[in-house]
């Protein structure tokens, strides 16, 4: 995490968490981390964010505040074998130790 802090700067000290959903909004890939390394209720936040994205638009990239310390960026991606929806949870309110 120190390496990340160095190049991302203090306001983005953590990695975000990538969730990949299929076009039916089913989770097909989640971070390979223990639950205590993920935001609380992350799967619920991701599903809610994906539903809101689907309700708003199937083509825009949307930024949502899903809590006082967490953004969800939702966007479609494409590949040789099809398309997916990515929900990227990103913390933005990391405090720097004084």
């Amino acid at each position, binding site marked *: *995490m120190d*390496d*990340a802090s160095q*190049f*991302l*700067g*203090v*306001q*983005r000290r953590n*990695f975000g968490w*990538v969730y*990949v959903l299929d076009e039916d909004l089913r989770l*097909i*890939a*989640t*971070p*390979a*981390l223990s639950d205590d390394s993920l935001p609380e209720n992350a799967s619920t936040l991701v599903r809610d964010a994906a539903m*809101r994205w689907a309700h*708003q*638009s199937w083509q*825009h*990239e*949307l*930024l*949502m*505040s899903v*809590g*006082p*310390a967490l*953004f969800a*960026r939702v*966007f479609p*991606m*494409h*590949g*040789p*074998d099809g*398309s*997916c929806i*990515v929900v*990227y949870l990103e913390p*933005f*309110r*990391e*405090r*720097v130790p004084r």
Partner: protein
Amino acid sequence: MMTENGDGHADIMALRSKPRLIVLDESLRIVFADWTAILTLMRACDNPRDPLESLPEPLNGAVRDVIASWDASTAAEAVVEPIPDVALRVSRLRGESGSYIAVFCENLARRDDIKHAADTFSLTRREQEVLRLVMQGFSTPEIAAELTIAETTVSDYFKQLLRKTGAKNRTEMIARVLGWSAHKRQE
């Protein structure tokens, strides 16, 4: 109308840009990609090849080395800088049909978002200080205490920051500072 949650954050907005993310399968074949990122990396590597298969070298080799170095039971994230000004944030995903690798491409020329914002929005030194604290989650009283100025002065700086960045609230301002190019509010 764009809604606000209880903490005063903008609820939802559209972006013009998305993270430069590439998703690989276990054999490092590209499964999903922001193709702008792929083309940018190909140019940066000066190593044109078929963009539909895998990352260009030396990026592909760097990701392979990262994965090989991971302890299967613990490590799942790493950062590498295989070529100047390009960093890859590599993390492992798991799915029902196997593992995936998420690769974010960061342009290190923009590593200091505050400095970039200062240049882009013509921010004064004091405005940069306030912006940095705002983005670290400091409240107005905390910023006032940190900078030894009055809370009303902090509020004035915050209004200036909103005006200069063209944002309506803190979330939109942060998005603009981070270069996420918010351009449209959601009804």
